[in-house]
């Protein structure tokens, strides 16, 4: 059985579809799909309410860092079949999804570890930024802890 592998990365100014991301990693050889969904939380900072986030990316470099991340994942968990990440750009209201990622694998353990690595390395290495926008019109550029 020859195995096709796909790495799909999309930066989108539209609403993200979980189903579309899941469908793009589905495979008859895979019994397990692990998914992570990140959404913008209701939050307060210094008495100001967060109303949304504004994302931007260094787009071609984001794609090349994603490719490196996929190579790293495949070196660590060789049973990983398909990897798909959709990330929002532009204005994302509180409660909306900013990132959806899915990884398929024949059995679940590899996919579950790989998805954790994928989100933590995406936050660490893929050149994307967000600023919080408050109900006072003020803004604050965020910084990932990890």
């Amino acid at each position, binding site marked *: 059985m020859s195995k096709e592998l796909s790495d799909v990365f999309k930066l989108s100014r539209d609403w993200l579809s979980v189903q579309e991301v899941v469908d793009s990693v589905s495979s008859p050889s895979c019994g397990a799909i692990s998914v992570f969904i990140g959404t913008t939380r209701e939050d307060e900072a210094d008495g100001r309410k967060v109303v949304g986030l504004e994302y931007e990316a260094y787009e071609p470099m984001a794609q090349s860092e994603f490719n490196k991340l996929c190579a790293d994942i495949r070196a660590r968990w060789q049973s990983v079949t398909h990897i798909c990440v959709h*990330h929002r750009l532009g204005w994302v209201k509180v409660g909306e999804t900013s*990132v959806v990622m899915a990884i398929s694998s024949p059995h679940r353990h590899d996919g579950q570890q790989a998805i954790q690595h994928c989100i933590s390395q995406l936050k*660490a290495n893929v*050149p*994307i930024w967000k600023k919080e926008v408050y109900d006072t019109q003020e803004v604050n550029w965020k910084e990932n802890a990890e």
Partner: protein
Amino acid sequence: FFMTAQVCVLYFAKSVELAGVKEEKTVAVPTPISSHDLWKLLLQRHPRLCELQDGVVLAVRQEYVPIGDQVLTLGDGDEVAVVPPLSGG
């Protein structure tokens, strides 16, 4: 013996606000140059970038370069980016 390259400098996130510009298409830069000296040169153009001092890195031809002793050889049209701390996800 030094040469000069015309590089394209890209700014992202908070560095856009501090530099007041998103992109400078032709910036004359001596080459070879250490990444530290390249950063100093950008600070001379846009002094407010010093706010980013802690945590900023550069990207040269879309590869991360920490600010330090590493010597870069630049060519005309090369892309140099100012990369504040990431916050994707």
